[in-house]
């Protein structure tokens, strides 16, 4: 994320792991060749999905991961689709954020 002059722009994310202005070469390439699709998720959507995962699965996901979980309800699946989600991290580190957000 940069200005026309090549100065790095300040990024934002509720999760530390995504709060970064750069992208790795693999994702940049996959996006360029249209091999992968990249979508965006809001803070609210991510945190809500994170809570849902706790309630339904008993797994507290990292908020970074919860962004991916939030995408699930936006997609239409067929009964015989194989859906794979990478639970990239645990949410123990994010409890403060979850607690504050949900007012527990």
């Amino acid at each position, binding site marked *: 994320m*940069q200005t*026309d*002059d*090549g*100065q*790095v722009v300040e990024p934002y994310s509720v999760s530390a792991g995504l709060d970064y202005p750069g992208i790795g070469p693999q994702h940049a390439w996959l996006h360029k060749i249209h091999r992968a699709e990249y979508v965006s998720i809001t803070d609210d959507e991510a945190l809500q999905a994170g809570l849902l995962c706790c309630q339904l699965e008993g797994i507290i996901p990292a908020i970074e991961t919860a962004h991916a979980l939030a995408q699930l309800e936006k997609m239409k699946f067929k009964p015989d689709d194989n859906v794979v989600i990478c639970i990239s991290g645990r949410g123990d580190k994010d409890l403060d954020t979850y607690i504050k957000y949900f007012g527990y």
Partner: protein
Amino acid sequence: MNRLNTLFYTKRNNLLSIYYTAGYPEIGTTLDIAEALEKAGVDFLEIGFPYSDPVADGPVIQHSSEKALENGMTLNLLFEQLKDLRKRVSIPIMLMGYFNPIVQYGVERFCKKAAEVGADGIIVPDLPIYEYETLYSGFFKDNNLSNIFMVTPQTSEERIRKIDELSNSFIYLLASSTITGANLQMSTNIEDYYKRIKAMHLKNPTIFGFGIKDSATFKNACQYANGAIVGTAFVKHLGTKGYLGNIPGFVRAIRPKVL
């Protein structure tokens, strides 16, 4: 052949170079500072263009970069300011900065513009040798611009030899393996590094930078190399009142008489 080659042909000892970030502390004083430094007897200059993430720099130069960006400094503006450079300044000039702004400007376009305003060399700490050699060296050569490579205490002998082959003006020796403005830890390890480089008898002149801040550090560096660069200490000076008028005093404090 450019002004840098001529300089090193005529003078081989106690060369003093000064670095400053264009646009700090004020947006419009780039040429005034350059002119004052030449008048004060400095041998060549490094005009820095600011970057949001100056990874090789300590807090002083980081701050100058931040302020320069706030003041509105860009490569476009800098080249605009440097249009009259050669009407006012005759010593060799290096443009120094990080690679991303150059990439966005266009490397070929940057080299053309740099040559147009009369710059002699470019110092880009984060431009690796491999990329320079395979992708960009043509643009430099076509525009008679010298690319300055950096050597640190960790650089292998093989790499130093390679740098010596690729260099055509001088080699920038980091006085220590740290960021700009750090205190030089004069340990035996550092002295060994200085001696080791000197004993290699490199073809190109060598100039020390990073941590050179006063007459003692300048004098010591000049024992092992052709000269040294003062950056942080001068940028600190620019943060003081009356910085322009006091430039001769600053230069004299580093190099008491023209040796």
